[in-house]
């Protein structure tokens, strides 16, 4: 049987990084093949090369036994490849049908034949059980549906080899299971699936065979039925890993943050947060779980002062900060690690020291009557760099030269060094490698042990379960339930995340 896909010695170099180092991999026709590796192991680069988005420096790729060198995504599509990117590549203001038929539009006398495109999209959707309304505008759809649209795009083009890049990152456990059903159905219809992930449970549940990448190299080729999560993890990290860790708990103290009946409006005037009440006490980590887009980001923005509250109140250490300026909130004891570390948490054009100084710049240690004590500023930067082991050049070099993990360490170091009683940590480890995740988790736990209060939002249920003292689940702008992490599983949390506990049994 010929291989559907074969990588032979594929190598890609970026300035200073060897992203892919002679990668070999064989994907058989009609199988689900998992590609696993940590963030930064070279998975995404490899897929970009396969799909013609990046040229390889060396090596080659065979598709159905034929050497393939795609100059653009179009060549890859024509060769029967379809890719579902991790960050969706959809046009928000266009309809589902327009998104799917884009560039392959059915036409009538030169104009786009809309009813025909709707009909065709509906056909493909029905054939694979992908429930999507082709006439909906994409920006109004929930994340789980967006993914179906992405898959539809590939199937509409009759892709025989489907590449899914971290497809479950934004899904609830229930949505994930539904996706797996679709993937199995696609395999049974003769298609080949390349499934990229860093979650071992998914590899075991879904794949037929596995290729492990580490530091840009293909280090293991395994048959799923003959291996174990521990073995895969060992190949991924090159060491033994304890996969099941939960933070030892700690007894909470006084309430630091008290939010009551908070309401807020999101983008496009949509009601984003509805009568949300919560409390965070010193010495505890409160984890907020929820599907992206259910009001978590807006809730945090309101608490942090970056979005106006429409109703309700926020108290920090007993002080009403509902309508306070950001600077007033910070000086009454709030530190904040934001979700978007590139766009909000740092400025890529500013230097390392300037990034480490932000939110400290008016502190009495660093300035007097508006004039900086530059010596103190530099000392502060250097001490944080060494305490958090931030790998960087001189403190004057731009922060854009730092890796993702080191960039997040800049943010975490800066915020924790405030010594504020409340730390808001939003997606604190998204996209980081295991070492950086462990480091940041240990800092959060230490902060809690030192009597700090932490409000954490995370899309990683494993992170929520591992760190939280209490779990709050948000659905459609409301906090729908409080759970005890020692009493629940990921699936239990997932039930509340989809609103499935409410009157209509399956959303």
């Amino acid at each position, binding site marked *: 049987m010929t291989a559907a896909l074969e990588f032979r010695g594929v190598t890609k170099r970026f300035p200073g990084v060897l992203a892919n180092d002679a990668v070999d991999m064989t994907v058989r026709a009609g199988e689900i093949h998992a590609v696993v590796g940590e963030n930064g192991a070279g998975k995404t680069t490899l897929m970009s090369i396969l*799909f013609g*988005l990046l040229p390889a420096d060396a090596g080659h790729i065979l598709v159905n036994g034929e050497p393939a060198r795609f100059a*653009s*995504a*179009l060549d890859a*599509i024509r060769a029967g490849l379809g*890719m579902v*990117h991790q960050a969706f*590549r*959809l*046009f*928000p*203001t*266009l309809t589902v049908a*327009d998104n799917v038929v*884009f*560039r392959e*539009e059915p*036409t009538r006398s*030169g*104009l*786009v034949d809309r009813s025909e495109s709707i009909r065709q999209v509906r056909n493909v959707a029905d054939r694979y059980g992908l429930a999507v309304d082709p006439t909906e505008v994409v920006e109004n759809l929930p994340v789980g549906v967006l993914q179906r649209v992405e898959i539809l*795009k590939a199937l509409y083009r009759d892709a025989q080899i489907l590449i899914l890049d971290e497809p479950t990152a934004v899904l609830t456990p229930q949505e994930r299971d539904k996706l797996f059903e679709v993937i199995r159905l696609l395999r049974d219809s003769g298609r080949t699936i390349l499934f990229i992930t860093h979650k071992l449970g998914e590899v075991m549940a879904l794949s037929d065979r596995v290729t492990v990448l580490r530091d840009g190299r293909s280090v293991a080729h395994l048959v799923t039925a003959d291996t174990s999560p521990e073995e895969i993890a060992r190949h991924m990290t090159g060491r033994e890993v304890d996969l099941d860790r939960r933070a030892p708990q700690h007894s909470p103290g006084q309430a630091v943050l008290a939010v009551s009946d908070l309401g807020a409006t999101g983008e496009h005037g949509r009601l984003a947060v509805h009568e949300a009440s919560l409390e965070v006490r010193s010495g505890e980590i409160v984890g907020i779980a929820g599907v992206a887009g259910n009001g978590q980001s807006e809730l945090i923005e309101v608490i942090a002062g970056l979005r106006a509250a429409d109703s309700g109140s926020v108290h920090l250490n007993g002080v009403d900060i509902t309508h306070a300026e950001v600077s007033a909130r910070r000086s009454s004891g709030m530190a904040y690690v934001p979700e978007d570390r590139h*766009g909000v948490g740092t400025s890529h054009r500013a230097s390392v020291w300037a990034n480490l100084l932000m939110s400290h710049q008016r502190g009495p240690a660093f300035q007097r009557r508006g004039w900086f004590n530059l010596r103190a500023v530099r000392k502060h930067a250097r001490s944080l760099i060494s305490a958090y082991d931030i790998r960087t050049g001189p403190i004057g070099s731009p922060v854009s030269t730092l890796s993702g993990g080191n960039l997040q360490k800049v943010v975490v170091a800066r915020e924790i060094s405030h010594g504020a009683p409340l730390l808001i940590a939003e997606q604190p480890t998204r996209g980081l490698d295991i070492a950086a995740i462990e480091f940041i988790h240990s800092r959060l736990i230490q902060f809690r042990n030192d009597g700090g209060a932490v409000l954490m939002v995370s899309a990683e249920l494993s992170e929520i379960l591992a760190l939280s003292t209490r779990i709050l689940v948000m659905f459609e702008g409301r906090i729908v339930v409080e759970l005890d992490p020692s009493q629940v599983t990921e699936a239990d949390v997932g039930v509340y995340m989809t609103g499935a506990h409410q009157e209509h049994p399956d959303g």
Partner: protein
Amino acid sequence: MFDQLFDAALLESVVRAMVPILLAALGGMICERAGVFQIAMEGMMLAGAFAAMAGSYLAVSSGLGIVFGVTAGVLISLMLAFGTVSRQGDPIVLGIALNLMALGLTGFLLPQIFGVRGTFRHERIDGLDRLPIPGLSEIPWIGSVLFDQTILGYLAFLLVPAIWLLLFRTPAGLRLRGVGERPLAAESLGVSPTAYKYGAVIASGVLSGLAGTQLALGNLVLFAEGMSAGRGWVAVVAVMLGRAHPFAVFGASLLFAFAEGLGFRLQGNGLPVQITDALPFLVTLIALIAARKRFARLLDLTTGG
């Protein structure tokens, strides 16, 4: 008082004022849809006006004037496209610099080629003929207003529905809007953002060049330094106010042209020229305030959020 102000002659001058603004704004709108921030219309229009005058003078032919005007607009649009699309330069900086370059270059070439400063008029400059449509142009009021235009006037009006059809009903329009909204998504389906953005910028070069041609050979038959006089910027605002939708952009252009035409008329009625000259810009500012909810994108673009 109103009888004296509102008559067919006023409407004629409104339509005359509207043609260049509308042409430039339609080009800016295509760029906006393709995701290119385009504020170089002022310069492209001015260069188009100069080149159209020069072409018409050299060949004693308004046809060649149109060709020259379009060429000048396209040349500047190519510089803009290269800088913003190929080199990913700042569109605001490039737009401002290209506007100033056009101002300097036309001010330089006027004395070097024609030996005059300020304003150049000459009998060799062949203006665009008005082409009254037999029958229709004799309809009272609207006949002389709508059906007695230069070829560029008719073109401007026809382009409004034509561009609407192109943008919202053809595959090319769908792809252009896709490129403007999410270039990466378009690229991953095999549509080249670079090609579409170049296309959009060049189209705006053509249209702004035509706008300048209309100024120098249609509305007047002469070239004066800086004769675009802020109309390119008014076109920028028209695109914003019209949310890059052809019919709304048409409406916004009409509003500004009305202010200009009215100013011209009030001047005749004895109001100081200093006041009437400011009228289109005051109306523009007031329209901005009235429709202020619409500029979130531009504000994000210029303030980083």
